[in-house]
């Protein structure tokens, strides 16, 4: 053993860290997580079905298995309720209500069409303004909603001006993931990590919006370099009938609802910034308050309104928190985190860079939401055990940037990618895995490099 320790340069304590703890509950909790993770990432099951299946497995093993063998207890129901981050659930639910009411007014398509008109046929201006609009919309609304609202119109505009819709739509998807990193409510990994460490909306914005803007500039430059030839070749004349059709579908539907929604959204937005002064009021409370005020004011049919709330998403998050909570309770997460410390050697910069790039690479291959939920307790452990971690929150920033930006490399990386590919298919355009990589990978690498420099310089 002594010889081995000399050869491997690890101390006896470090060698002990390689030993996997023997608890059967730990192994089962990891297997449950892996089954859920693979089912989601390779679309073997619907995300919500997979997460619920995992949560139920955790409980059944705990109660039925634990009844016969106490070593099988993973996570009790009451403990699981404490692990679910209800702030994330209420924040997402509140924003869904906002989105549903705002989306009905057609304001985003109206904005997109105005930008198209203002560009006066300049293809580069049309493409860039739609990409930027998608990025900004994704910063304040859920990124999938931004894609569903803007991409169908973008495809029509691209088809009308003779541009390959793929060059525009993939860039919009990439912008949506980048824009989502700018605010606490933009992208699920941002919401999950931000809520977990109790970040206020303002704290998050100050730290992440500048780097998101830099990444957006990089996206525009890369897009121009890749497609400048096809932009200059696109025909610019769109027939009057087609323009009229675009204008007709881009009208504001209900001005009164729009003004009310924008008014309440502004108040809610201010609430996000000021919430921390009221005894650390969580953003979830602000979002839910804003949504409730809007419901009272706009008076939508409450049954229809609640149908608009996507309960499958909320159940997906609850299930996922329970599955990862099971791994946390059995010590599996702590074991994994201790391996990272072994390699990082208590060097905060090194640990943060490992977190950023691992999150970036893994999020491109598998879905970034379950990865973020699983990586979060590891980030907790590293932050608590590496000197300087708590003050700078560097590892959390690395996780957010890695998970948000890494989702851009493949179309499996995040939900907006999958939805956009589906929308393109509806336009008769099949985007292969390789085709997405061609646009996604360069942007992912460049933006992760920008994120790395940002983390090292800023913190």
């Amino acid at each position, binding site marked *: 053993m002594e010889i081995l320790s000399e050869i491997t340069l690890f101390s006896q304590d470090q060698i002990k860290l390689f030993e996997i703890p023997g608890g059967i509950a730990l192994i089962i909790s990891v297997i449950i997580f892996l089954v859920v993770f693979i089912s989601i990432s390779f679309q073997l099951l619907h995300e919500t079905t997979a997460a619920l299946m995992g949560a139920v497995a955790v409980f059944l093993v705990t109660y039925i298995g634990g009844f016969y063998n106490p070593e099988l207890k993973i996570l009790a129901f009451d403990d699981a309720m404490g692990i679910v981050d209800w702030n994330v659930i209420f924040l997402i639910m509140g924003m869904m209500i906002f*989105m549903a009411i705002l989306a009905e007014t057609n304001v985003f398509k109206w904005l997109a069409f105005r930008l198209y008109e203002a560009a006066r046929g300049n293809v580069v201006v049309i493409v860039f303004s739609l990409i930027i609009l998608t990025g900004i919309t994704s910063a304040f609304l*859920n990124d999938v909603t931004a894609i569903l609202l803007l991409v169908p119109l973008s495809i029509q505009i691209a*088809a009308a001006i003779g541009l390959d*819709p793929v060059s525009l739509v993939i860039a919009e998807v990439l912008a949506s993931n980048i824009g989502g990193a700018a605010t606490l409510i933009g992208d699920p990994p941002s919401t999950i990590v931000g809520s977990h460490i109790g970040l206020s909306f303002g704290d998050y914005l100050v730290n992440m919006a500048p780097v998101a803007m830099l990444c957006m500039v990089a996206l525009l430059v890369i897009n121009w370099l890749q497609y400048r030839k096809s932009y200059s070749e696109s025909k610019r004349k769109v027939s009057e009938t087609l323009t009229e059709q675009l204008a007709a*579908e881009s009208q504001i539907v209900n001005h009164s609802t729009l003004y009310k929604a924008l008014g309440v959204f502004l108040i809610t937005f201010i609430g996000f910034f000021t919430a921390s002064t009221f005894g650390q009021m969580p953003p979830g409370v602000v979002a839910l308050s804003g949504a409730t005020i809007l419901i009272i004011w706009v008076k939508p049919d409450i049954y229809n309104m609640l149908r608009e709330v996507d309960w499958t*998403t909320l159940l997906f998050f609850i299930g996922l928190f329970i599955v990862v909570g099971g791994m946390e309770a059995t010590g599996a997460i702590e074991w994994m985190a201790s391996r990272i410390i072994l390699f990082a050697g208590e060097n905060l910069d090194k640990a943060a860079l490992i977190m950023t790039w691992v999150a970036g690479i893994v999020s491109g291959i598998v879905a970034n939401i379950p990865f973020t939920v699983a990586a979060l307790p590891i980030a907790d452990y590293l932050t608590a055990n590496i000197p300087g971690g708590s003050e700078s929150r560097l590892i959390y920033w690395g996780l957010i940037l890695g998970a948000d930006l890494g989702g851009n490399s493949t179309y499996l990386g995040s939900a907006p990618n999958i939805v956009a590919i589906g929308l393109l298919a509806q*336009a*008769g*355009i099949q985007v292969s895995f390789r085709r997405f990589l061609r646009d996604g990978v360069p942007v992912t690498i460049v933006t992760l490099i920008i994120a790395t420099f940002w983390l090292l310089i800023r913190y």
Partner: protein
Amino acid sequence: MGLILCAARGGEASYRTQQAAIALAKERQDELIFLYIIDLSFLSKTAAPIVVDIDNELEQMGNFFLLMAQERAAEFGVEARTLTRRGAVREEIIKTVQGEEATTVVLGRPGEKQSAFKMSDLEAFAFEIEQKTDAKTIIV
């Protein structure tokens, strides 16, 4: 006088198919219908919040493609009708062929990069249409 049915979408491959259907309609003096099918099955792959009336968004997108196809036909002096259906593409094409009593269905040969079907799938689908309806299929 026969009736030609052509599924219309927004990609380059679809434009070539539409062009062939228009030329055929002009040559035979047949009636021409462009069809757009809304298929929302792709949304079932992810648990993302779908708070947008995506059916309406896709209907508008489909209407736009149909309008583009109609404009193309008009340029060649062919007046085309348009239809929108909802559901799985193959089933809806067959149902529409039966409902409209189409005599010819024009299907687009898969392009190198972008197409809804592989060639072998397309040939199998063409065979299926001819088995289940009285229409002839042409792969262009």
